[in-house]
């Protein structure tokens, strides 16, 4: 999944979508994941990074990761060709 290139993401977790004018806020782990997605990291790479830093196993993380991707899709923050 690729997120929209035009998104402005601040270091404190605010997101601005210039194509709609909508703003969003992320929690810290949501911000980390969004930044990794923008850098083109794969699911496996993201899972590895998160499970190393946080107290969570890969299986548990996976379900919340996909849930998070679902939210990004719902908010139309991903490239439309995905």
């Amino acid at each position, binding site marked *: 999944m690729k997120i929209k290139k035009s998104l402005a993401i601040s270091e404190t977790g605010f*997101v601005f979508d210039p194509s709609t004018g*909508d*703003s*969003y*806020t*992320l*929690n*810290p*782990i*949501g911000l980390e*994941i*969004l930044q990794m997605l923008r850098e083109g990291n794969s699911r496996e790479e993201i899972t590895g990074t*998160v499970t*190393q*830093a*946080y*107290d*969570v196993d890969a299986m*548990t*993380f996976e379900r*919340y*990761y996909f*849930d*998070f991707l*679902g*939210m*990004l899709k*719902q*908010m139309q*923050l991903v490239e439309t060709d995905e």
Partner: protein
Amino acid sequence: MDKKPFERPVIKKLNAGMPSKFGLQVRHEPITEIDGVPVSSLLERYGSPLFIYSEKTIRSTFREAFRAFSSRYPNVLFSWSYKTNYLNAICKIFHQEGSWAEVVSGFEYKKALENGVKGDRIIFNGPDKSRADLQLAVKNGSLIHIDHFDELYELIEVAKESDAKPNVAIRINMDAGIYPAWDRFGFNYENGEAWDALNRIMHCENLELAGLHTHIGTYIMSTEPYRIAATKMAELAVGLERKFHHHIRYIDIGGGFASKNTLKGGYYPGSDTTPSFEDYAEAIVSVLMKADFHPDHLPLLILETGRALIDDAGYLAGTVVATKRLADGQRASILDAGVNLLFTSFWYDHDIRPAKPVSDQTEETAIFGPLCMNIDVIRKSTIFPLLKKGDPYVIRRVGAYNNTQWLQFITLRPNVVLIDNSSQVHVIRREETLETLNDLESTPEHLNVHK
């Protein structure tokens, strides 16, 4: 190296110009322990979900209520409303504090007797008292509050048969300025029916008119209806003194005091809007102290309030079963306790808290129970922290009506524990098992043949 605690990732859309109605961030202070006992250890030991009662809170709430009335009026009595919560341990705490028993069925009446309440300290209310119930109540010298003329005449027959002169009151319904006015219980004040009943009793040599009773409604968020009710009750009592030279021994003003829960649709939280015991007491007692009672015959004031005395002392703790997103993207959390255990969620916006520390992150969330039924909704939409599967939660103020109106529906009813004043935990009602229910059933023999 210690890993950081994991919180599920979340993104929220910002709605500029539409802050929360109070303009403040909604914070969810966790309830990690109750009276010094960690919630997590309670769930581990006694299972999830779990009802938890605080003896300390019950006693302190009762004493606050009693003080509010007794500091204003010389002769006050509380009678514990069994239907609000008739777990024996809970009833016995109130009886230890000096409460009599207020019951509304033969079942509750016998429960009170088994809890050690003397017959003459039981107030028997309600529209359905069987002849056997009346006979038992007459034999025990209980206070029988008559609901309708059919009951009045049956009681006269029972009294004649027993050669006893039962102590009775009539229940009076009235316009106390609340809508809708309750007129289905007792005899109406405004249309003269109450006086008809009083005249009938006063001319009956088999009945002793001991008191007058009313119960104007439930969850009454204003004190004014109580002032009106007390005024009308005092007028009847003074009228009886004038007409029959009869001094009633008590005025029972019933219950109906609101707790600090927030009713569905309420704009402000109940904790900010519910009158205090002092407010209710001032409204009622100020009328009685001004009434024209004979100074030597100031009637006893009886209160039957239940909800306001027990709601705060009850907690329902449990575990998040799952989180999911609904079709429109809204977050939903499924808890392991639903409307089957939390009957009051049909009329309250319950205060649900995490039972362990959480971040300030929140999402608008629908809170569902575990039942495979569409009606199982605890909160349709609330700002809620980012709990995930397995996280513990606590629902506050569930002490009234839930352990009497709960349903054995789809799942079994869980353990109920009491934390005593020394923070010791006691199981006061065991969880149900399949055997509990199967013991009540029997299957005809021909259905036991398996094909």
